């Protein structure tokens, strides 16, 4: 029953769904290349007549809009881009490293407690707004507020359950006998895992790393409450542009939004086949 072709009605439904899915993406891309005169035109302009990259330039050089007679942004996005890259890359690396050891530990030597995944899942449910409250208090006492170290510490803590569980599902897929053979050959358990287990799950390791990067790069609320003047990330900067200049700098905001989503869409397509596993803590493989 599953081998039939699409009926004409189904083809139409599919086409409509595709338009609905892609239109918002089309819109943000178009807005990002609109010159200032097209930004807030009424009725809205769908495809700019004179596409330009001036919005992207403005992100790094606030005066680039001068030729259009429009004041630039109050602050460039350079720091936010730098902050996003720093915080996401470092915290992703740490989270995956910690997760890798936990995953091998739980998968190969764990006591198989049925409770652990439920506890981890429950931890995920606590609203970040609530965790943020004690963090802000503790961090302001130890000088970690408005610092990348503080932000990275939170990101590592929040994403480690994800990296652990996703990596564990890859380790579980691997037959135990392969490592045991290496151990019989005389290697210690640690050496066996470093030279056998880890190379064999490198595909999964890559997918997990990319998935954790997506989570860190997307994070908004912790960055919002923990950043004042030293620290910034792209999502925070995007929110700030909306507040500071509501309705006037559409194009520049859209350019920043495109900059924020481009790496994730690329990474997302790369690990497409592992997305379900990541989103469901390894409950769904494929």
């Amino acid at each position: 029953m599953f081998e039939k072709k699409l009926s004409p009605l189904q083809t139409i439904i599919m086409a409509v769904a595709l338009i609905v899915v892609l239109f918002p993406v089309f819109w943000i891309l178009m807005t990002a290349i609109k010159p200032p005169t097209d930004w807030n035109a009424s009725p809205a302009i769908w495809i700019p007549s004179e596409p330009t990259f001036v919005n992207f330039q403005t992100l790094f050089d606030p005066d680039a809009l001068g030729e259009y007679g429009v004041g630039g942004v109050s602050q460039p996005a350079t720091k936010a881009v730098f902050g996003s890259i720093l915080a996401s890359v470092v915290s992703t690396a740490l989270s995956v490293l910690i997760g890798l050891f936990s995953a091998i530990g739980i998968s190969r030597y764990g006591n198989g407690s049925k409770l652990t995944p439920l506890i981890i899942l429950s931890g995920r449910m606590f609203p970040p707004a609530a965790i943020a409250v004690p963090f802000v208090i503790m961090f302001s006492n130890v000088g970690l507020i408005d610092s990348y170290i503080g932000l990275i510490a939170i990101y590592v803590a929040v994403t480690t359950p994800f990296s652990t569980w996703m990596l564990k599902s890859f380790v579980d897929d691997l037959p135990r006998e392969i490592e045991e053979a290496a151990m019989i050959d005389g290697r210690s358990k640690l050496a066996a895992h470093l030279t056998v287990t880890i190379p064999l799950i490198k595909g999964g390791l890559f997918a997990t790393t990319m998935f954790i990067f997506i989570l860190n790069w997307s994070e908004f609320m912790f960055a919002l409450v923990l950043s004042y003047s030293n620290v910034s990330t792209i999502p925070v900067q995007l929110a700030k542009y909306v507040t500071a200049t509501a309705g006037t700098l559409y194009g520049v905001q859209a350019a920043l939004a495109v900059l924020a989503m481009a790496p994730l869409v690329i990474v997302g397509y790369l690990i497409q086949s592992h997305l379900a596993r990541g989103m469901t803590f390894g409950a769904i493989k494929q």
Partner: protein
Amino acid sequence: MSISQSLSGAPEPSKSKIGLSNGAIARIFTVPGQVVSVLVLVVPLLVALYMSFTDWSPTRGALFDASFIGFENYSELLIWDTRFTYAVIRTFLISVICLSLEFVFGLGLAVLFLRKFRGKSLLFSAFLTPMMILPVVVGYIFWMLFQSNGPINQVIEFVLGADATIQWFRSATAAIFAVIVTEVWHWTPLFFLILLSGLNAVPENPIRAAVILGANPRQVFWRVVMPMLKPVIIVAFVIRSMEIIKLFDEVFMLTRGGPGSSTETISLYIYKLAFNDFQLAYGAAAAFLVLIGSLLLVHLLLAPVRDQLLEVDR
């Protein structure tokens, strides 16, 4: 499909070459992870729990100077704070509506993807695009789309053939509608992805048997395929419930909870309490109520299928 696999299969205890038991190695390997979760999750939670029984706010100096007020924050929230009550009800309603729509659209699309057509893998990627975009950006995109001179009003005008200048963010109903549209657009792909991988994993023999016994395609789908899909459906719902109950980023970008507090979700309300009004202790109490509520909810959701979920394997 194997929560089961990850949960079962405890190895037999044995000694390693250097004389460490498996238990010891497990502990050593998981130490960094445990340290991180204790330091960065458990400690703050305990601080927050303590705080929720005090009247602390940043103007009152050090945390331990605050006076202990017992369950006052909690009773205030549960009995008097209608804004909190409404935020809870609103988040719950938004969740139910969004998840239902995401499930229906996701399942419909997944079923279409069981058919044969050209460009399937390209279309598959295209349909996953929304879930790869960060929530803040999704909120920003839809904020633009819902502007009164934006494309959504233009399309409505085109369809109705009349002027439509709906001020989406000025009326409570319209703003909630905008939030729901945004959320459904963003996360239907996740349901699609999970349900499609579930459908692809359904074994063919029971379907063949049903067909031979004279079942029509509709009966095969509802009586044979759907029951086998149930664990996957539950997983999708549990994962999405956990996320949507924390709904914040998109609403922050779209409406900031406005107009008034008519689109305020639980997370947004706690955020405003703690970081706009600096009522940190009160916010912490609200957070704990939410945690208890969502724990109960997810365990209720899991309860009827937990055993099934733990046994189903591919």
